[in-house]
């Protein structure tokens, strides 16, 4: 960026700034590289000193990957994670987005739309351990322990408020004039929502979907509490493996990579609106 502040800087301070930025890149990269490196090492190469560069210093092998991908439970957990993540996201958007639109466009008689929004937000910031017992008991009573439906039910509850708050903020950016023009042309309220507001908010909708999905994918407390085998997601699987296997470098590396890859890769494609979404709309842009 060409601004006065940067141009007027001494070369030494520019150098320091660039150095800090590069250090930050390395710091961020280290765990990723460590995991990738360990995932392609043989068990003996792991503890060899100076085995850093593949092919040159050690012979890479896919044994660890094969072992994990041949484990039916690992595959099952990846599948559960994906299914629960997608299911929750779909459901949350389905009932949260209309509510968000309603709060963005209309006022209510007794309570201000803003106060309803804050009420939704209050649900989001509560520490989840508060409802650990009641949710466990609820799921146990309905026979939903260790089921996908049970997890989707819980995750929908945690993410619905988020979706309402953030989508309301996005909908408020859609010009009212466009909507009113459509109304004049005879479009119904539903058509205005479905055919105008929603398509115009698509970017925001995608970011919301991504954040909800990432939350479900990464959630550990309830995943480990209410699942054991059938519906166990990746966090539950990793926590379980950690206690049965102890420190296993290959296994940890491969599972870490499998577990973090989907949301991290997706995040590269939804950069716009991310800050806004994660701050509940407190940051514009």
């Amino acid at each position, binding site marked *: 960026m060409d601004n006065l502040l940067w141009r007027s800087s001494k070369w030494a301070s520019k150098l320091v700034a660039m150095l800090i930025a590069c250090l930050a890149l390395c710091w961020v990269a280290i765990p990723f590289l460590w995991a990738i490196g360990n995932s392609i090492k043989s068990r003996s190469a792991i503890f060899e000193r100076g085995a850093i560069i593949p092919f040159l210093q050690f012979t890479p092998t896919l044994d660890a990957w094969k072992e994990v991908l041949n484990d039916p439970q690992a595959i099952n957990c990846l599948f559960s994670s994906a299914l629960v993540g997608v299911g929750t996201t779909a459901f949350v958007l389905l009932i949260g987005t209309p509510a968000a639109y309603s709060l963005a466009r209309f006022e209510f008689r007794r309570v201000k739309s803003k106060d309803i929004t804050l009420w939704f937000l209050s649900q989001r910031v509560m*520490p989840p351990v508060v409802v650990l017992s009641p949710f466990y008991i609820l799921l146990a009573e309905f026979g939903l322990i260790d089921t996908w439906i049970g997890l989707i039910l819980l995750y929908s509850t945690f993410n619905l408020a988020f979706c309402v708050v953030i989508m309301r903020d996005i909908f408020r950016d859609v010009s009212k004039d466009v909507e009113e023009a459509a109304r004049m042309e005879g479009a119904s309220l539903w058509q205005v929502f479905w055919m105008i507001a929603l398509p115009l908010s698509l970017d925001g909708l995608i970011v919301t979907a991504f954040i909800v999905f990432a939350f479900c994918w990464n959630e550990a407390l309830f995943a480990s509490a209410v699942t054991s085998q059938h519906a166990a997601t990746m966090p539950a699987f990793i926590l379980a493996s950690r206690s049965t296997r102890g420190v296993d470098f290959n296994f940890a*590396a491969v599972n870490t990579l499998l577990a973090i890859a989907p949301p991290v890769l997706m995040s590269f494609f939804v*950069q716009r609106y991310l800050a806004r979404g994660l701050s509940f709309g407190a940051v514009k842009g």
Partner: protein
Amino acid sequence: METIASVQSKAERGFKYALLAPSVIWIIALTFFPILAAVRYSFANYVLGEGITAYVGFSNYARLLTDSGFWYAIFITVIFVGITVPIEVCIGFVLAWIITIGVPGKKLFRPILTAPLFTMEVAIGYLGVTLFTDQGGLFSTILGALGIHIEWLSTASGGLAAAMILDIWIWTPFVFLMSLATLSAIPNDIFDAAMLEASSHWQVFFHVAIPLAWPVLTVAILSRVLEGLKSFGLPYALTSGGPGTSTQLFSVMADLTTIQFTDFGRGSAMGILYLIMVSIVITFFFKQMRKRID
């Protein structure tokens, strides 16, 4: 005309309530009733399969409040948040500032520096075991080569420090992302004008950048504190709460009490007490959000 308007507004009323109702009902049914249920369980003895066997008054609470383990968990959780959040805020903001004012390659830095934010805490915790173990772990090997030996995973302070380092790795990007969005939205002219007036970069940083970004920074800090107080996956996967119970952050302890030991009465009381304590932070957060939401 009047009749058309009133028909329209009637349709509008039906429409807006129909859109809002499912979400409101869902949250009431699945958040407010569960919290009430938690209050009820906290006064009871709950046995899985049998239900509430007896109401025990305040005894769950009394036992917790006199249990040093409970206070220890709260203490280390507060320490955990108190150390990680300031570091995350400082590093995140400075990085955002450096990249806003001119380090080339913003398009490259932003996605890479925010990537840790979307990693799974449990996975990073488990990977952290291999980073910090003294049998061939990366950190121990590097520090060992420098002659420094730290018992990361076999002591309480080492385990907490390791968890904090990884927490900082994951969450600094959050502050970075917020700060970058805010600083980028400030017109360049403002910094240019400030630079002409100010004698040094530091003055621009402290007297222009920080004050302008402060409102968003407060929201970021409070969000971080609230999320930090919920920390579960990372410390649990890294140390399993050990050695002993010395690195059990609050959520880890509550989870073990409730799920492992199936003591739902005590677990509920823990949750309710925690909610009361955390509500101080929640109040501050709401004051800020009230200003930011229109």
